[in-house]
């Protein structure tokens, strides 16, 4: 008795193979799926599915007072969560009209640039891992550990940092934090140089990545690209320079720009951005050390309505007790209005559109997530290429699943 196998309709005439580059795959860094129609090794068509890690942040945010939304923003681009947190606090400060002192701005810049280095390190080393060069990844992980230790000194957590408050930081940077920062600034440039030497003029890496997954500047702009992917295509748009926030206008740094927008250009743009970030951190640290006396103790803005008062005042003074109670219970007075504010995240323009109707929670909060917007171009970019090129293109676009779905 033999059972006849029933093939699906049209499967004998079908000339292409369907391959599921599924949601759980060692090469896709996060959960997103691509269903590829392939002719041998060439990709003819790709359909992408996202939403495997959708956590309904925008709906949850409609029920949360402002401070309770910061942990949600952590989980957007979780490789560089301080940038998300700072961006959110900057948006709140714009709505609530809070002025930030310079020292806080410089400390924020230090933390944001550390986060940018941390994110670019993952992206670049993972391009190496995906093309077979695992060692670079391990060399630089040690410095990512040091960055995590710096975050831990300031806010207590390593990955999803929930760092800072509306108006500044929760505590002044301790001496240990500065010691760790100095160790990082001392030792990291040598490791970055070693990592760069491993890949930058490596014949195998260049042959593998040059011409792979290119995108033209017009296509990139039409697809809504921002960040290193857009700069690799040739457009020098960087939110830090275009609409400076948090005193970035006081710093002098270059914006690396590529030409063809292929994987090699993206690698080089991110690499050069890491050097520029190091320059910015050194400069910011020098500026922070210049503050003397009482100014060196400033770590938050003077806005008692939005910033938790120090505990000894809460226990002794009436106004501080009232403010503490109101802030913890989420009764922050939000003026009605709409504000769109953006920061330069590691992947591009991370925007927050906050609509407030005067209540205790936002009426509508929308995250403009750069990954979600430029992921649309992925199916276009890989068409006609080989499967292994598609994998390398995916890792060079730096797709973080948390930012894709929110």
């Amino acid at each position: 008795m033999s059972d006849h196998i029933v093939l699906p309709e049209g499967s004998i005439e079908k000339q292409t193979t369907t391959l599921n580059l599924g949601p759980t795959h060692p090469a896709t860094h996060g959960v997103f799926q691509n269903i590829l129609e392939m002719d041998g090794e060439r990709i003819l068509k790709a359909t992408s599915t996202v939403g495997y890690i959708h956590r309904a942040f925008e709906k949850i945010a409609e029920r949360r007072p402002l401070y309770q939304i910061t942990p949600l923003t952590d989980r957007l681009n979780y490789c560089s969560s301080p940038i998300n947190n700072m961006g959110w606090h900057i948006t709140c400060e714009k709505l609530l009209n809070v002025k930030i002192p310079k020292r806080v701005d410089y400390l924020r810049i230090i933390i944001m640039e550390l986060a940018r280095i941390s994110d670019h390190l993952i992206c670049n080393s993972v391009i190496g891992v995906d093309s077979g060069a695992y060692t670079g990844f391990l060399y630089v992980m040690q410095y990512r550990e040091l960055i995590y230790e710096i975050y831990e000194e300031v806010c207590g957590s390593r990955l999803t940092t929930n760092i800072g408050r509306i108006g500044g930081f929760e505590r002044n940077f301790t001496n240990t934090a500065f010691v760790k920062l100095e160790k990082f600034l001392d030792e990291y440039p040598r490791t970055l140089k070693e990592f760069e030497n491993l890949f930058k003029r490596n014949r195998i890496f260049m042959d593998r990545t040059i011409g792979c997954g290119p995108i033209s500047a017009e296509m990139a702009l039409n697809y809504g690209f921002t960040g290193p992917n857009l700069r690799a295509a040739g457009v020098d748009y960087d939110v830090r320079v275009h609409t400076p926030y948090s005193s970035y206008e006081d710093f002098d740094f270059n914006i690396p720009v590529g030409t063809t927008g292929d994987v090699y250009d993206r690698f080089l743009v991110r690499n050069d951005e890491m050097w520029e970030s190091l320059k910015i951190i050194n400069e910011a640290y020098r500026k922070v050390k210049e503050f003397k006396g009482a100014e060196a103790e400033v770590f938050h803005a003077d806005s008692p309505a939005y910033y938790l008062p120090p505990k000894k005042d809460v226990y002794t003074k009436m106004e501080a007790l009232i403010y503490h109670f109101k802030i913890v219970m989420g009764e922050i007075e939000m003026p009605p209005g709409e504000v769109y504010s953006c920061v330069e995240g590691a992947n591009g323009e991370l925007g927050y559109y906050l609509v407030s109707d005067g209540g205790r929670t936002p009426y509508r909060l929308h995250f403009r997530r750069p990954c979600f917007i430029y992921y649309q171009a992925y199916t276009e970019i890989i068409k006609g290429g080989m499967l292994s090129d598609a994998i390398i293109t995916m890792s060079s676009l730096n797709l973080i699943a948390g930012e894709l779905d929110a």
Partner: protein
Amino acid sequence: MLTFTAPKENNLKVLQFLYDDAELKFRFLTDLMAIHYPDNMGAELAVVYHLHNLEDNIRLRLKVFTDIKQPDVFSVTALFRSANFMERETYDFFGVNFIGHPNLIRILNVEEMDYFPLRKEYPLEDQTRIDKDDEMFGR
């Protein structure tokens, strides 16, 4: 940021004008989303476009209002390819039907979902669950 409204029939024409004009040059679509105002009878859903003129660094916000009983808005994917996923997300969350969109299906939620979760009438928690005590968890 300058915010203005346009009738929903003209949204594509307005965006095309802002794109083509040699002085205005709003050639970058930063964001596309919707807001639900249940109290505006006849204009409950607002589709909001954020545009950016990269050369002169000017940002703009365009709001287009539509009735919730028939939320049809012209799709702008022909002009901005980045609107594709963003319109799908707006459809998924609010039910705005974008006319002319190449593939208007849900993007972030499951395909079987038959309601539009970000509308104000839907509570935060899934009301079909029987294992949770509503007194403690329902918000």
